[in-house]
């Protein structure tokens, strides 16, 4: 069984969207979950958050930022080419899918997306939107070129706030600045969902803790199997060791030990640099 790429889009520099034919995954996928992708027989198992799914067409959408050797290789694939493995959906779905519409109607969600984090935020906002619940969404990026999913969020009719580090688009500043100003303007949120780089999630969680708003983050830990078998993805949450792939990927941001999580995330950085170098054809070391 191979998994065919049926659509490819360049969303921004080094950020690509793929629609992949994977009917079994599309049928069961829920917001908050992820897949494990292997490009070919020699490839590593790459965890990627599900960013949309269409059960009727049997299609799952993923968004990839080309930062390492494997994600770069993935980003070079084209429509018609096939992935060797596409396993999922993995991880627990977002908590709100267990709530009734009535319960959700009384809640106000603020979604905070950093960089490619906009991709996994999208299915969550969409899910709530389909139940008639409008959320607020902040999308932060380094600059204008790196803002993704703007139109998609607009189509959902949510209150969208865009911010960039350099002010090239939307509000100049960081997502935490926007959260602060929304709260200062009197907005009341029952829950914040923050997805993006670890540091961003760390600072959002620190801020919302002060503000007293429950916060959910989605951790992109290093993984191997994604089924709970290896413990590579372990994180410290509330003083306990948890496996991101089976206990998460979403956790209470106020309980996550981000410093340990960030250190673990960098574990293979040197190795990655070495391999990247090799994969570009050099065999110097």
């Amino acid at each position: 069984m191979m998994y065919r790429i049926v659509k490819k889009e360049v969303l921004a520099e080094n950020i690509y969207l793929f629609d992949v034919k994977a009917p079994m995954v599309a049928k069961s996928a829920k917001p908050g979950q992820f897949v494990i992708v292997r490009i070919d027989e020699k490839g590593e198992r790459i965890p990627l958050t599900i960013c949309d799914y269409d059960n009727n067409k049997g299609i799952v959408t993923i968004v990839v930022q080309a930062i390492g050797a494997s994600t770069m290789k993935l980003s070079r694939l084209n429509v018609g080419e096939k992935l060797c493995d596409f396993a999922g959906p993995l991880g627990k779905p977002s908590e709100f899918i267990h709530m009734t519409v009535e319960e959700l109607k009384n809640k106000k969600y603020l979604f905070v997306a950093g960089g490619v984090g906009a991709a996994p935020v999208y299915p969550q906002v969409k899910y709530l939107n389909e139940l008639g619940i409008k959320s607020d969404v902040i999308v932060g990026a380094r600059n204008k070129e790196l803002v993704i999913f703007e139109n998609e969020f607009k189509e959902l009719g949510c209150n969208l706030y865009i911010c960039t580090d350099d002010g090239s688009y939307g509000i100049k500043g960081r997502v935490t600045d926007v959260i602060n100003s929304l709260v200062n303007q009197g907005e009341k949120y029952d829950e914040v969902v923050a997805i993006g780089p670890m540091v961003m999630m760390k600072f959002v969680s620190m801020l919302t803790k002060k503000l007293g708003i429950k916060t959910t983050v989605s951790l992109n830990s290093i993984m191997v199997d994604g089924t709970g078998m290896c413990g590579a993805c372990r994180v410290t949450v509330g003083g306990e060791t948890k496996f991101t792939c089976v206990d998460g990927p979403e956790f209470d941001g106020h309980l996550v030990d981000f410093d340990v999580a960030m250190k673990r995330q960098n574990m293979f950085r040197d190795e990655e640099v070495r391999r990247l170098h090799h994969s570009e054809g050099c065999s110097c070391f």
Partner: protein
Amino acid sequence: MERVPVRELDAKERVKNFEEVCLGYNEEEAVLEASRCINCKNSKCVQNCPVGVNIPKFIEYIKNKDFKQAAEVVFDYNSLPSICGRVCPQESQCEGGCILGIKGQPVAIGKLERFVGDYVLENNIEVYEKKEQNGKKVAVVGSGPAGLSCASTLARLGYSVTIFEALHEAGGVLVYGIPEFRLPKDKVVKKEIENLIKLGVEIKTNVIVGRTITIEELLEDYQAVFVGTGAGLPRFMGIKGENANGVYSANEFLTRANLMKAFLNEYETPIKIGKKVAVIGGGNVAMDAARTAVRLGAEVHIVYRRTEDEMPSRLEELHHAKEEGIIFDTLTNPVEILQDENGWVKGMVLRKMELGEADESGRRSPIEVEGSDYVENFDTVVMAIGTIPNPLISYTTSEIQINKRKCIVVEEDTGKTTMDGVYAGGDAVTGAATVILAMGAGKKAAYAIDEYIKANS
């Protein structure tokens, strides 16, 4: 007559590669070793075999050079002899009961079993006839020894069987855990799986039952389900510093090395190993991790809180580990993992232990020696202190009852779970155990499933 020695790769050479260490018997050696069996009346070997292989009978056939007949006897009881011959703890099972062992060395039953299994694989002998299909479907979850043997038994009873496997490759621990130098993948494991496919079994990889599809959904399409999901969830000690960089579970370390082939440059999965590695534990898993680390070029220490006598690993692994230069720090237990300012392991605080009274398992339990703490530098630590069943299926299927050790509750004789039409066996039921027990459980459940389906149609 002395036991016929088995040829092995030289320790100095083999630590530089991942090739199989034990070369096994050739025909001549096998016949000679078989001639040592005195065919005693009592056959303690058979009584000690978890699946009751008729050992004297198959050995008799080897003695007479009738290897095909020998294979038929073995396969009546055990569908994976090439694997079991390599990984069973023979010294505490068949060979432990051999009468020759009282005064000298027992018959090398494991090596003879392996010989028979390999003979079949190498000569492409069809040991099983393909049976006419009865049109009934059974789903098997997990492709470890329990799932494989259940599937093979059911296929031979005429069922159309589909195996659902979470990983990208079938075989369970046989492919992701046990290393190539002990159990060759292409030569043995893949061949066994190909034979299963020849029997008509379908294998669907990348399906995580409980997530991709639920047990309830499977029961809409299949008359019965067998759950052989193993005990894959690694345990950690719960000591300080355990989440530091450079601390792996044995499963992670072995999966990177075996399943993902991280030691080969052309494979993309990374592995990072320091100059000095500590492996915590004394079972097969610890030996496998230690011997893998040696092959990746490290100085390796096994840190174990009891003595060598209590180590649960196979005797052969212990010998091989020692030959390969692994240092045994016994009666020693880690109490803390020390890290540098970047969060990398730099050493451990170790505590000396002594043996006290025997515990309920009959092993003498270790007691801490007060004031004996010392620090030793290490740059990689591998935890091989056990695993528990993965909770995915029980999380998502409330009808399947589990006990407080997270093991699936079943009826002893049938493997029937608390959910109608669902059977289970192997490590998922017993907790981490052995290949042969998992295989036996899969086979037993297959017969129970056959009866269940017949009774319900």
